[in-house]
């Protein structure tokens, strides 16, 4: 059953195709990682959770919460949501607008 782990509803992808997505960081998360964005290398099929794991493994990533909010293409995403080439990912610290 080699395809059992393919997320249903995911877009078409090529197994193992390598690509990079920008991950935007804000507020305390940007301070902790010392950057306002990082590029994360992925292999398809990739998910928001894969991006998060890679960011948490960066220097300073250990100071982030284990499961921060993630956005893909300007929308809050579940960790199982697909990330495709051309997508913009962001980690969203607890918000403080108003």
């Amino acid at each position: 059953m080699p395809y059992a782990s393919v997320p249903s509803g995911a877009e078409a992808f090529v197994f193992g195709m390598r690509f990079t997505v920008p991950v935007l960081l804000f507020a305390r998360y940007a301070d902790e990682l010392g950057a306002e964005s990082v590029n994360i290398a992925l292999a398809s099929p990739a998910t928001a959770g894969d991006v998060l794991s890679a960011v948490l493994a960066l220097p300073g990533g250990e100071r982030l919460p284990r499961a921060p909010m993630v956005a893909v293409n300007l929308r809050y995403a579940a960790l199982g949501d697909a990330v495709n080439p051309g997508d913009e990912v962001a980690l969203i610290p607890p918000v403080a607008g108003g």
Partner: protein
Amino acid sequence: MRVEIVERAIDATALLNEVAAITNGASVLFVGTVRDVNGGRPVTALDYRAYSSMAEAELSAIALEAEARWTPGTIVCEHRVGSLALGDVSVAIVAAHPHRGAAFDACRYVIEELKKRVPIWKREHYADGERSWVENAAGAQRTHPRGAER
């Protein structure tokens, strides 16, 4: 419906005029301003930062939710980012509706959801020179609600 993240002063009167219509008998305007104290600690100034493109997308979604729930009504909202001084307006929301109850409820909905969902962050500057990112007490979603799925 119009929502915008702005880097200039907010003109609440312009927002009120924008929704003025003889079909809407009631307008409710919420104005948030920079307070001198937060949690008992004296504040001297503030920086607001936003993930502007997502903030406008999320704020649009909230305003459309409000307009769908309290129809026929109109929402206009601006949130300012950048450096703000004490007393500066950080956010203004107008809800206009034929009936006052709906105008109040829709305006309240937008500010409550904004504080929970819209990616804007605030760094307070204190009298002792320290600066610190703050989180909204009520709405802050610390971690991913579906984080446990993985």
